């Protein structure tokens, strides 16, 4: 007999074929924190109790992509197992790691900060204060190595992506796109609004670990000046993490 709080039954995810060697387990079609929790929960279950034939998993905001070997397990058998695991009660994660990450906001480091503030009828200082006040979660890592999509952006800072994406934006860019903020590791194209840069490399070869962040990790930002950024950037170049892990 169950007394006390009883969770509503979980809705089944959609099991969508991504070709003959991957299944997309889709919990929602939109950006939804509850769906993302279920994605990460299923991902953890598969990590702790592997299913024969699964090659690797890729968590995203709303779905878990499961790559598998079709010569070892077929679509129907794997779908059944994934469905069953998806409907198991969702444990709350309390032990997610929490990182503090420095950002040099505005100026040459964040060329969109002024315009971004104007559009929102705020001052650049207000934008920065609000951006560092929130705690974020790594909802997914994708597109290019270390590109971390963070959920938890304050509603006052949400803004649609730029009409004209830039073909090249700097390594370490901290930006906002829609309801998300992000940490971009490598230089590359982006349609987001560029607020600043971090010296922290979320991906760096020849460093242990190569990838700093895991999906599910917590992140808060703090502001540094250009001089501190330059010093930390040199240290990061030589393999220092710079990001600090907060005591649990």
């Amino acid at each position: 007999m169950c007394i006390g709080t009883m969770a509503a039954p979980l809705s089944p995810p959609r099991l969508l074929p991504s070709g003959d060697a991957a299944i997309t387990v889709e919990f929602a079609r939109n950006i939804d924190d509850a769906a993302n929790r279920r994605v990460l929960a299923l991902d953890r279950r598969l990590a702790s109790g592997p299913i024969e034939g699964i090659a690797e998993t890729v968590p995203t905001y709303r779905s878990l992509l499961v790559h598998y070997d079709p010569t070892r397990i077929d679509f129907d058998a794997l779908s059944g197992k994934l469905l069953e695991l998806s409907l198991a009660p969702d444990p709350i994660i309390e032990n997610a790691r929490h990182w503090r990450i420095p950002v040099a906001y505005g100026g040459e480091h964040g060329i969109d900060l002024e315009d971004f503030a104007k559009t929102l009828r705020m001052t650049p200082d207000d934008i920065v204060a609000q951006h560092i006040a929130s705690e974020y979660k790594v909802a997914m890592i994708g597109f290019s190595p270390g590109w971390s999509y963070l959920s938890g952006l304050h509603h006052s800072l949400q803004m649609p992506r730029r009409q004209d994406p830039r073909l090249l934006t700097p390594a370490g860019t901290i930006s906002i796109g829609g309801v998300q903020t992000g940490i971009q590791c490598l230089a590359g194209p982006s349609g987001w609004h560029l607020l600043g840069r971090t010296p922290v490399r979320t991906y760096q070869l020849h460093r242990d670990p190569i990838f700093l962040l895991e999906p599910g990790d917590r992140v808060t930002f703090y502001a540094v000046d250009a001089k501190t950024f330059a010093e930390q950037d040199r240290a990061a170049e030589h393999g220092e993490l710079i990001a600090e892990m907060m005591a649990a």
Partner: protein
Amino acid sequence: MSKLVVSSIGPASSVQDGGRFGAQRYGMPPSGAMDRLGLAAANCLVGNAVFAPCVEIGPFGASFTARDGAVRVGLAGAPRGADIGGRAIAWNASVTLAEGETLKLGMARGGSFSYLAIEGGIRGEAVFGSLSVNARAGLGSPYARPLQSGDELQAAPASGVPERRIDLPAEASGPIRVVLGPQDDEFGDGVKWFLDSEWKISATSDRMGYRLEGPAVTHLHGHNIVSDGTVNGSIQVPGNGQPIVLMPDRGTSGGYPKIATVISADFGRFAQIPAGTGFRFRAVGMKEAQAEAKKFAELLRSLPDRVKGIENFDLNIEALHGANVAGAAVNAVDAGTWQSPSPADAP
């Protein structure tokens, strides 16, 4: 230690192996050979592991010279005219370059990518188990970029074993088979358009994605979805309705609806379709797609048994003909079109 020196090479040529798997959850593209059958066949010819690193040679000509000793190589994938000092060399076969000899390869015929395996493999520093080059991510070894003239690949001294050829089954033909989804429900009648139309691969395609030219495929609810994961062969449709098939250097997630996915058994055949050649897609069920995946895995497993001695090999007319064009083809490189940035999936 012998080495193989790249004397000349066109764009879209790089060291590739079976790929870099296990880190897609961190945004790491898998990279790896465009045509795994070609990669595996070249390796088997010189006794390497099937997915060992090879030189993946793009559509244009290339030449390689042995230095500091003899080098034995295997040639497979898209066929080309090949010669050493005017002597025609068979395709799908191994050959040994004596010290100082130059192997000249013409343009790819009936395909885009050929594979040159070096006996004993290519030496380099693996990241996530792979030497595959991904220039955008600064990855790959011994060079983290496409190959250029003058590059050197360290090689084991040639073993001197008799040369080999490999008997491959007749190449499959017909439409490229796809499994619909994961977002085919975003298209309605667009699915029928997609399946009923003839497509061509754009010359602006690269190892990240093949852009398709044909009628626009229209969406039911607009072209933005919340990003989700991608696979090799995901066919995403951006706002202009021109599908992009994602290739091994793809972003690991993408925010355009994906109408269908090329089946894994047809992926290499699709990757080999030259730019500008017309082709069609055909939808198959999951059972058929997975049965084909098993057949393809069996074909790969059978490759070592398909390697034969070369003594009874008829040097075919095509190889001789190709040898005549090899020299001229090296000049036909057009570096302007084949590789260009494709930021379609940018955040």
